[in-house]
Structures are given as C-alpha cells and as structure tokens.
C-alpha cells in the first residue's frame, strides 16, 4: 500500500458511510418508513469505494438497482439520498425516482437503474460522448453477475470495444442474481473470462479488498483515459442481506453467509490500516462517529422534509410540455 494516508482514510470513511447508511436503511425499511423496493449494498462496500476512488468529479458512472453504495462512493449527498428513499420533495429526484432511480447528473451519476443491465449501453454512450468531445473523462459501468447474461452486456461492451471507448465495466459478482447462483446462470466461473469475446482485458480481483479493487480499476481507468479502450474488471463479493429487504433467502446455505461475513471488507481494511500503522484506532473511531452522525442527520432531514405536491406528478415528463391533468 503505497497510497497516501488521506486517501486511505477517505476510502475507509466512504465505506463506513455506505455501511452505516445501509444499515440504517434496512431498519427504516422494516419500520415501514421507506416505500417500494430496497436492495441493500451491505457487504459490497469495497467495490464501489475501490472503484470510485479512481474517479474525478467529471467522470461518469452508471449504477444498478443495488445502487446506494455507488452513489455514496461517487460523492452523493446522504441527505438528498435518504430523502429520495423516503420519496420526499427534497430528494435527489424530488421523490419521483426512489431507491431504484437515484441519480445526480451533475456528479456524473447517470442513475441507478431498475432494468438489470440498463447501464451497459448508456455507459457506452457516455463514453462515446467523451471521445467525440475529446475529453479525458471515463465512464464506469457497475453491473452484477446476473446482469452479465443480459442482451445489453453483449451489445454495450462490444460497441465500447470496437470503438475503443473510455469505459470500465465493473462486475460486482456477488454469486447470485436474486435466488439463482452463478453456476445455475452461466457455465463460466469468472465473468471476466467474457472479456475475450470483445478482445479487451479481463481481470478478476477480491472484491472485498478495497485496495485490490482500487489497483485493478486504476489500470483500467488509465487505459481508458489513454484512449486504449474498455476493460472488464470482476470483483468477487457477497451481499450480506437478501436480494431485497424482505427476501427470505431460502436459497443459500447459512455457512456460506457466515464464511463471507468473516471476509467482509470494512473490518479487514480497518485491521490492515492499524496493522500497517497508517493511523491510530481513535482516528478511525472519530470517522465512525462522524459518519454515524451524518447518517442520523440524513434521516432527520428526510423525515422532516415534505412530500412533493401532487402537481409535481405531471412535471418533468418533457422539458417543455406539461401533460394533461385530470379533467
């Protein structure tokens, strides 16, 4: 780890932001405060943080249904995020999007996506724009192991490959698409093997090791910025919760869950930081407390925010047309 202390602590902070935010979200969901579906990112924090630590503000990401972690890692504000989960007017999408559609285009976050695989071709398009505009921005496309069997995986990566677009495709292989384990949805063990099909680099890393993720993505981002085209990076990880909050998870053995929890990314990273004497325990504790505080503020912000006015429902369909309202 030749990285700067600041950077390492920042990575730690971001992972904790995700961890504490998501833990709180599961509670709030259970209390009935958050409508709709929630797909928790708990356990996968190292992927988003290791990846986004390589990105500038003007770089883009496309996210997924399991997107809270990506948003936080790319710089999303907890207040606006929590408010959006509540469906409040102050949320990122004014309450119109919810968990599955949070976005902040100004931060380069081109949206969570409720369609599995929805991001691949959008990411290729953003990369294409950067290329035509001769900017050095990079687009990261997050996707799951399950999404690697979607139409868009194939067409999006092929297009990025044949046009040498500055895109990094980041697979969060958490071994399941809802209830279906990887060996039941594809014959291959490593999703990164599919890079061969597009003549691009494919790498698999321990997705619970934030530094390993960081290093792998760094290479891929460099390639992309240099105009050498896309890469496919697979991060092996595991979701601690069910597919969505409320999932009985009858499809995976308890031991498996326990084994993976033992390998969870934040404890590991924390230990490493202390062992390598990057910092003192109390520095980390201070971060933990700050983040916890921040999350509570976000909850308060969300709770105290108003619902959108019903008239909002017909706004924002078009930039210039308002659709008819009830006669």
């Amino acid at each position, binding site marked *: 780890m030749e990285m700067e202390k600041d950077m390492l602590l920042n990575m730690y902070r971001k992972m904790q932001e995700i961890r504490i935010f998501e833990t709180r979200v599961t509670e709030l969901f259970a209390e009935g405060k958050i409508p709709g579906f929630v797909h928790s990112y708990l356990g996968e924090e190292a992927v988003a943080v290791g990846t986004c630590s390589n990105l500038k503000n003007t770089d883009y990401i496309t996210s997924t249904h399991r997107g809270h972690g990506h948003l936080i890692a790319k710089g999303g504000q907890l207040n606006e995020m929590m408010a959006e989960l509540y469906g409040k007017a102050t949320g990122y999408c004014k*309450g119109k999007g*919810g968990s599955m559609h949070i976005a902040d285009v100004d931060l380069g976050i081109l949206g969570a996506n*409720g369609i599995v695989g929805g991001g691949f071709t959008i990411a290729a398009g953003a990369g294409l724009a950067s290329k035509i505009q001769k900017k050095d921005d990079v687009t990261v496309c997050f996707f799951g192991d*399950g999404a690697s069997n979607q139409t868009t995986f194939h067409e999006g990566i092929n297009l990025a490959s044949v046009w040498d677009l500055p895109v990094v495709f980041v697979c969060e292989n958490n071994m399941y*698409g809802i209830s279906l384990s990887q060996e039941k*949805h594809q014959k291959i063990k490593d999703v990164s093997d599919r890079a061969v099909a597009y003549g691009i680099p494919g790498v698999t890393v321990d997705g619970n090791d934030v530094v390993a993720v960081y290093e792998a993505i760094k290479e891929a981002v460099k390639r992309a910025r240099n105009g050498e085209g896309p890469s496919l990076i697979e991060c092996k990880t595991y979701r601690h919760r069910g597919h969505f909050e409320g999932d009985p998870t009858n499809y995976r053995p308890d031991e498996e869950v326990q084994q993976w929890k033992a390998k969870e990314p934040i404890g590991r990273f924390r230990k490493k930081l202390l062992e390598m004497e990057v910092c003192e325990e109390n520095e980390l504790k201070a971060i933990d407390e700050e983040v916890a505080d921040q999350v509570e503020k976000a909850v308060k912000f969300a709770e105290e925010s108003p619902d959108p006015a019903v008239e909002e429902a017909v706004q924002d369909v078009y930039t210039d047309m308002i659709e008819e309202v009830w006669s």
Partner: protein
Amino acid sequence: MAKMTCAEAIREALRQEMERDDRVFILGEDVGQFGGCFGVTGDLFSQYGEERVRDTPISETAIVGAAVGAAAVGMRPVAELMFNDFVTVSMDQVVNQAAKMRYMFGGKATVPMTLRMPYGGGISAAAQHSQSLEAWMTHVPGVKVVMPSTPEDYAGLLITSIRDENPVMFFENKVLYGMEGEVPETIEPLPFGKARIHREGDDVTVVALGGMVPQAMAAAEALAGDGISVEVLDPRTLVPLDVEAIKASVAKTNRLVVVHEAVKRSGFGAEIAAIVADECFDDLDAPIKRVGALNVPIPFNPILEQYVVPNADRIAKAIREIV
C-alpha cells in the same frame, strides 16, 4: 369451490395443466425454489422439479425466444416475466417471432405458448416496474391478449391460454394477486372473447380492464346511492374482444366510460371508444369518456402514484360527467 387468491388461482391452474399435459412446462426468473417474485409459482418446483419449473438466467430475450422455439416443436411453455415492463427486452421475440411465425410460414407452424406478465402500480415500484402495457400487444396481430380480474377468471382463462394453439399474452395485476374469491376445485377452461357483466345497470356502461374492475365496482356502488345505475362490463380478453357484449350494453345504457390503468393516450380504451363511436353511434347519448393513468411515467412517491393512477373516485367523476 374453494376460496383462493388470484395468485393461488393462477398456481392451481398451472398445476392442473401440468398434471394433465406433460408438454406444459414453466420457465422464468426465480420461478423455482424461490417460488416467483410474487410467489405465484410457489410450490410447483417442489412438485414438478427443475426440468418442468425452470429457473432461467436474467435473460428475457432468451426466455421468450426459447418459449417460441419450444412451442413451435410441440411443447406448451408457460413463460413468466417478472414484470411486464421487461417485455421491452423481449419485444422482438413476441412481435416478430411468436406473433408472425404461423402467418409467415403460410399456416404451417403453431406456437402454443403463454407469456405471463404482472402489470400495474400500487406498490411504489416506480417508473420501470409499474407499467400496464397490454395496449401494445393488442396492436400485434397474431397474439391473443388476456386480462382477467377475479380468481375464477384468472384460473379458467389461464387454462384456456395454455390449451390455445396460439401465443397468448396473459396480464396479471399485482394488486389483484392478493384478492380472494371462489374457484372451482377442478378448473374448467373459460372461453376467450366472452365478456363478464359484473353488475347490471341502465344509465351508463363502464368497460373496465383487469385491476380496474374492482375500482369500477366501487364507483358503481357509490353512485347507486345517488340513483345512478351503472353496468360494469369486464371484457376479460382484449383479443379477441367481445364487441357484441359491449354493443349490447351501450344499446341499453346509451353511455360509455372505459377504464384502464395504462396511460390514457393510445391505451386500449381508445380502441374500445373508437369501435363504439363507429358501430354504436346512433345509440350514444353522450360523449364517450376514458379514464386511464395520466400520460406520465409512474412516480415513486405513493401520494404521487395514487394521483397518477385511476381509482373509484375518478371513475365516478367521469360517469357523473355524462349521466
């Protein structure tokens, strides 16, 4: 008769057809051990095993395409899409393959497949998981379109769908899944193209589709207090459509309101209104009203969502405008 929910009725129909005909099999995402995203396939996996209740990769294109291929060579696949919104990923397989194969091949292929698709809002699932897309399918010659509203009709019409020699788009309403009703122990097929009159009335005909039937009934009930007599007609299948029943009802009431959860613009309500505006012109005493969702994507916030999607109040309001 047994009391069951719409979801259970669908499962029973699947079970009875799988029992009766070993060409019938199920494929879709998480339909196996998990029992389906809305629990519809439930225990069928433990009863019939993974050969006949097949968990697929997240590949809607392959799910529908494989159903087409299997049907064309003699099987009777029942494919499930987790949400009808994902048919966007398999439109080609529905529209250019399943629907047209028989015709393009000069009548020499049969494609007896059923595609089950949950539709509609009401669960804060937002814009990509709450649509009602039946109208698209009615614009595709070669498929039949079924949209029931009671447990009995779900069961009976699903049996008919599976036995039908043609591709059938079977629309299931998420909110209705939990609604209970009586279903015969041995489910008999119900005919396509036969409307059900849920309530007779003299002043106005309300044609309501799928999930809007209970809302129309509630509106009718509310208006009865004011002496307005509402006939509620559920076409049950959109293709074929029981035009005669609609005409007969309008001939009696001289007024028509059409209701669906899909966005109003170019919804199937337009087709029904257009048929009546042509074929029943002389019977009509008032403008034809349509009630559908506002022409916007479905918003996440439940208050906004309720504002966008039709309900009994809106239906009552539309009725009052013309009686």
